[in-house]
């Protein structure tokens, strides 16, 4: 098991390295210069001053040298400082990551809690009107852009109920009630499209498992349908569902960028966008790194969950 995790981590590091080199190089290739941006309003800035700022920001070296420096520091846990706020990037991310994590966690949990029962129900009531309804809602959920849904939600809530979630993010530990008031709607919006795909996957996967030979064995034992589905069919149909969740986490994390902004949540989503437009290289690099690492951790969890569900997939 430990070996397995180590092996996965090594792969993960390789992937992260490829990812970060891509980000590192692309950002420096495209037009747009952070020094020019920072001095944009000033106008009368001498060449020396530009050079001074450039060297202060560590941008006077070659891209290759910068990359080596950055990688070396990154290994020691130092992801550099923001070129704009001068704050250590790790601090910036630490301040915000809990928000994104909580949001993602809540969204995934809600999606699972809504979607898996709905998927089971839909499969059991196959081809009835309730099955059709669940399927229509599910596919509808995939067809509405979530920023759109979020905006309509905010506008309607404020217009018709005179209420929107309280502003000024509070962490769960400092004020759980306010925190939940703030998080539940955005999590719901994010959960929408995720649960749509989970419902569909649960349904089709369950239906497929219900055709498997061993289900016949269990029925031949005289088992009730509830036992057949809840104990055997469901667990057997979970693998593709979990795979899907692992993949969809990427979409979900991407969605946080917009949703965090609409609901004024200080997550890492906006950090990267701001970083890209302001050419704040260390911030973007670190944020991408964090997203990559998150994705990998999620998929490691997914892999471990595979083993937990299916003894055949347990690493020796």
């Amino acid at each position, binding site marked *: 098991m430990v070996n397995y995790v180590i092996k996965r981590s090594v792969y993960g590091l390789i992937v992260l390295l490829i990812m970060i080199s891509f980000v590192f190089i692309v950002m420096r290739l495209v037009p747009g210069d952070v020094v020019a941006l920072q001095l944009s309003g*000033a106008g009368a800035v001498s060449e020396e001053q530009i050079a001074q700022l450039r060297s202060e920001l560590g941008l006077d070296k070659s891209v290759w040298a910068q990359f080596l420096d950055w990688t070396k520091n990154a290994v020691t846990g130092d992801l550099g400082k923001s070129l704009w706020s001068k704050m250590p990037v790790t601090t910036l991310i630490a301040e915000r990551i809990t928000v994104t994590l909580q949001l993602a966690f809540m969204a995934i949990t809600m999606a699972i809690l809504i979607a898996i029962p709905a998927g089971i129900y839909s499969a059991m009531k196959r081809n009835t009107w309730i099955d059709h309804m669940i399927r229509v809602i599910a596919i509808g959920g995939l067809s509405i852009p979530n920023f759109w849904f979020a905006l309509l939600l905010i506008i309607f809530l404020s217009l018709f109920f005179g209420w929107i979630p309280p502003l000024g993010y509070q962490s769960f530990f400092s004020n759980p009630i306010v925190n939940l008031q703030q998080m539940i709607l955005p999590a719901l919006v994010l959960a929408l499209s995720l649960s749509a795909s989970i419902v569909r996957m649960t349904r089709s996967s369950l239906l497929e498992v219900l055709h498997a030979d061993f289900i016949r064995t269990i029925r031949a034992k005289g088992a009730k349908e509830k036992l057949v589905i809840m104990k055997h069919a469901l667990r057997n149909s979970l693998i593709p569902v979990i795979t899907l969740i692992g993949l969809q986490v990427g979409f979900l994390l991407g969605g946080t960028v917009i949703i965090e902004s*609409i609901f*004024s949540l200080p997550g890492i989503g906006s950090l990267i966008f701001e970083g890209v437009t302001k050419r704040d290289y260390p911030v973007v690099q670190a944020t991408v790194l964090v997203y990559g690492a998150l994705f990998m951790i999620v998929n490691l969890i997914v892999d471990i969950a595979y083993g937990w569900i299916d003894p055949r997939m347990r690493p020796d």
Partner: protein
Amino acid sequence: MKQSNWLLIIVALTFLLSACSNKSETTSGTNQGKNGSGDGKPKSGGVVQILNPADPDMLDPHKTSSIYAHNILGLVYSKLVTYETGPDVEFSDYNIVPDLAKDWKVSEDGKVYTFHLRENAKWHNVAPVNGRNVNSGDVVATFERIQSIPGHQAYMLDQIDKIETPDDLTVEFHLKQPFAPFLSYMANHFMWILPKEAAEGKINLETAAIGTGPFVLDKWERNVETKFSKNPDYFLEGLPYLDGVNFKTVPDEDTRLAAFRTKQADTTGLLSPQQFANLMKQDPNLQYRETLFPTQTQVYMNMTRKPFDNLKVRQAIAMAIDRKNAVKQIFGNGEVSGPVNPSLGKWALPKEERESLQPYDIEQAKKLLKEAGYPDGFETKVMVTDGYGEATVRMAQWVVEDLRKIGIKAKLEVVEYATYFSQKWPKLDYDIGVGFQSYLQEPDEWLYGQLHSKGAKNWYGIKNPELDKMLEEQRTVMDEDKRLAKILDIQRYALKEVVNPIPLVTHITASPTQPYLKNWNTHASYGMIHMKEVWLDKK
């Protein structure tokens, strides 16, 4: 979360100086609104809730030019001099009044400025300054720091020869030559006076702000909330009224509006005319203040490229644009602007003159084009960035449509902000551009900066020796009226002979506040310098 909201941290235009005031009826055209009356005795207490579209990167006033940073800093710091605010003062009145300096004196030759500091000015009671008195050493340390850091503010001080401190409460600035804008520059938001401990590095200016202003910074929770509490030792007796001010970061415009509607905020920023109308419909008791925007939309042309080197072409373009309808449709309300933005009050040309010098005349425009040798127009590109928000992009689309009417086939090119600002505009890599200028506060910045052949922001290729001479001359005229006459002349000259950049419109923004928010006398400069007088009329 339109992209603008993040980008504006740099040039910060969308954020409408959350302006609204209970101004008295003496307003002129620039400053109208339905005001909750400012009568009644100010009450102390209460906390004002303000929404910011974005949070500053850092708080060092000399390393950031973000309006969000300076608005926060304005509550904490003081300048030597500042602009007047109050019920009788207009948003765009640039009356210089004492701040940290109780008075000042200009020498006969205009080369020495002497400031006398207040005896009762104390630093906030926070380590390491712990409420000690302000002295001239702090001022010198501050200015030396400004001069040592590359940035927007350095050029304002490039006329200073030396700074002297005859005693603890006196500071003398010796200039290389007479320099009329100097006092305005001293009132500029970059000139916040810091304790010398800060210059010595004992305070981390990137995250902390310890000053002499009406409020003390309690907590800066990045991207969430910034909290201020009343400074009990503020040098102006009885001020401030408020117990505190809270800024919250809310990036999305619709969410900000929703928050205001649901009373989670006491004021809200930029609104479209429709949004404003809806708000008023919903709650007729709302106050609002209409103010001229501190900068204007301009169309600028690259004079190093043909055919824009041709004055007649530029004149034709200027005449082709339907400014009045544009400002009405895109911004709801506003004025035709001039080379100096009308928000600078008397320094701008009078409204009638701006309009008469810049007529909307398609026939004449076509004729001019024909004379210039382009009877069938020409093809060109109009550059715009979405970094300023959607309104600018809409304005650019408007301009493109107008140009089409006189035969100029212009293709709109939306440019990414970083590229726009570091590659395109300053490097003159464009044909025509539509954009904003920064919130410039001094006519010299508007004119010398943009029009002088060596101007810091002359990114248009303007080279006009006669104009250069006029621009240099006005800087040395110490008499305000005489300088004003010259400034107005320069503007008339520019509108007739240069026609680049073409001023389009300055819009009027209506920003609502909750009825109980009193003395909300905003000013066009950065720093929310009116906050010290604001009070809340509620229990």
